[in-house]
Structure formats: structure tokens, C-alpha cells
């Protein structure tokens, strides 16, 4: 089974950012995204929702370059003012050509 080494970017953010983040991800070259609903606590604890602690958890499989772009974009545009955390992980992707 030929696997392609790619990057998995995971972003946990406030729900209010969903549509904006998805738009950004596509613009930055992501071929897709997967979202699960989450809740949690962090250091900032500020979040604008009537239901406290809710969040969205976005996963994007992408090439190292796209992953870098996404991470840099999130760090610049969302970290200063929003409750966001993001991490990157090396993964081996099935039929990975599709997602580059």
C-alpha cells in the first residue's frame, strides 16, 4: 500500500469562526476539511457564545507547504483575538496525491 507523507493540521476554535475559517482554508489551497464539534477549556477562556465552552475542531490534510500557509494564517489572523489552538502532525495518507 503506497502511502503519501503529508501534514494533518488540527485547529480548535470558537464556533463563530466556522464559516470564515472554512473559506480561508479553501483559499489557502486545502482540498477539503473535516469538522467535529467539541467543548473545552483553555487559558484565555473568552468566547462569544450563549453556550460556554463550545468549540469546533477542524482537521485538514495538506501538503507541507499548504500546511505551513494555513498555520501562519491562523497564527496571524486569529491568535491575537480569538480562542484558538492549532497543531500539526506528520501523517501517511492513503492515495495522498489527491490532497496535495
Amino acid at each position, binding site marked *: 500500500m503506497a502511502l503519501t507523507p503529508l501534514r494533518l493540521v488540527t485547529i480548535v476554535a*470558537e464556533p*463563530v469562526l466556522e464559516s*470564515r475559517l472554512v473559506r480561508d482554508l479553501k483559499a489557502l489551497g486545502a482540498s477539503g476539511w473535516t469538522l467535529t464539534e467539541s467543548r473545552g477549556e483553555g487559558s484565555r*477562556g*473568552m*468566547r*462569544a*457564545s*450563549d*453556550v*460556554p465552552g*463550545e468549540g469546533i475542531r477542524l482537521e485538514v490534510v495538506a501538503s507541507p507547504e499548504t500546511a505551513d500557509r494555513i498555520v501562519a494564517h491562523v497564527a496571524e489572523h486569529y491568535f*491575537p*483575538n*480569538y480562542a484558538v489552538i492549532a497543531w500539526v502532525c506528520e501523517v501517511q495518507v492513503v492515495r495522498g496525491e489527491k490532497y496535495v
Partner: protein
Amino acid sequence: MVIQVTILPQADIISAMSTADLLQANLLSPYVLAFGLGVLAKLLRSDLALPKDVYTGLSIYLLFALGLKGGVELSEAPFGEIFLPAVATLALGVVTPVVAYAVLRRLGRLRPVDAAAIAAHYGSVSAVTFIAAQTFVRAVGETPEPYLATLLALLESPGIAVGLGLGLLATRRADHPVGGVMREVFTGRTMLLLVGGLIVGALTGKSGYEPIQPFYEGMFRGALTLFLLEMGLLAAERLSDLKRTGPFLVAFGVMIPVVHGALGAWAGTLAGLSPGGAAVLGAMAASASYIAAPPAVRMTLPEANPTYYLTASLAITFPFNLVAGIPLYYWFARLFAE
């Protein structure tokens, strides 16, 4: 409070007494009690919580039911009647956020962006407060105007727009496009269900409404009780933030509704509303949005601290209006009517 004493001293004693009665009747209503139970449950650190999907489903139901019923009533009302009250409502939507902003800046010395963010909330309206007010005035024997739900729809957006505008001016980003965010407010759940319900109700009329009335009207108050239970849980969850927000915001969250409520009841009376209708308009003006405003403000003014505006509107003003404000605005409305 200042207002009531200075403006109409002579009707003082009788009304004061009946206000106490009204207050007591209100306190023992299942709505206020359910809210109190929610607060208590959270203080006891209970795991009780309405599942998120049920909470959303309930709020969709309440808003759509509100719109539907309003629409059916609208279809039977002479349309001209609504003109003056509509103008009064729009005026309140512009004046109240400016008053709130000025108080927050001058007296509270908040950062401009925080003041603007809070002003956007107090310029808009809480649908549940509206419902509670309507239920209250009906319970005391009034028949508020059938088109009040239409006014509710009118009051939601202007205050948010004014608040965001003040914030963008303050952060010197007057060029920032507010259009996108305001479009999201206009097409947001609250507006769509309310305005959509009004249109559906008006088009289908009494005969179309009849078969669905048991669902949308018969269940309405019971469902509201359950919703207020959850609101109590959510409000109490924010109580611990009061320490962080400080005493000024608590005072603000209690005083500004009284000012806005008197303003609303007065404007309503001027526009020809009955005491019941003017009281509801007062409650609308006094209320602060906690569903439509927060995401709009969060997107446009991310530098503002959400703890401030959410705690003030959800943990202070909402309970204050529910428990004491609504009877008070009704008392104002009756004074103004004389």
C-alpha cells in the same frame, strides 16, 4: 428610579402598592421559578443541562411560534396603526445604544471598543424577554397590540449596527465593511424565524393557522418554562465572571434597563400604544440581545472582551428584567397613560 419619582409624584402611593403585588405575582409565575431553579441547579454544581440540540430546537420553536402568531394577528389588524409605533421602535434602536455607549464611556471609563460592543447588545433586543413581558401583561389582564412581534423584528438589527459602527469608529477602522456582518444578522436564525413566521402567519391567516395552533400556541408557555430553566443554568454559569467584570458593570446592567425601559414605555405611549403594549415595548428597549448580537460583535470587534457583554446581558440584565424589570415597565406604562 429617579424618573418615576420626579415625573409623576401624585400617583405614587397606589401604584407602589400594586407594583409590589405585580412583583409578587411575577415571582411566583412558573417562568421566573423555572429560571430560578436553573440558577440554583448551577450553584449546586448539578450536571443538569438541556442538550445543545434540544436548546436550539426549542429556541427555533419559540421564535417561529412568535412570528406565526404575530403574523396571523397582523393579517387582521388595520395596517396603518403600526406606523407610529414602528417609528418609535426604530428611534429606540438608534437612541438606546448611543445612551448605553455614553454611560459606559463617561461613567464606566471602559475602552471604546468594549463600550461599543456592550452598546450593540443593549441596542438590540432579547426575544425571551419580549415573550415574558407579553405573557406578564396578558396575565394581568391587558391585551397588548397584535403587531408587537413586528416591532420586535424591527428592533433587533438597528442597535447592533449602531453599536458596531461606534466600535469601528473608535478603533479607527471606519472603512471596515460592516455589510457582511449585518447581512448575517439579517439572515440569522432569529430574524429569519421571526420575520419568516410573520409572513407565513399573515399569508395563511386564521384558517390556515387553526390546525397548527395546538402546537404553536398550546405548547408555547410550557416550552418557554423549559427554555427558561436552561437560561437559568446559562446565566448562573456566568455569575462567576462577575468578579472579573467588576461592580460598575453590575450597576450598569441594572440601571440602564430602567432608563431604557422608561424611555421605551414613554415612546410607546406617545406612539399610541395601550399600557400593555407600551410596557412590552419598554421591556424590549430595556432588554439586551444575547443570541444575535454576540456573534456579530465577536466577528467585527474581536478586541472587545466577550466576558463583559455576555455577562452583562445574560447574567445581570436578563434576570433583572425577568424578575423586576417587566412589572416596573408596566407600572411606568400605566403612569404615562394617565
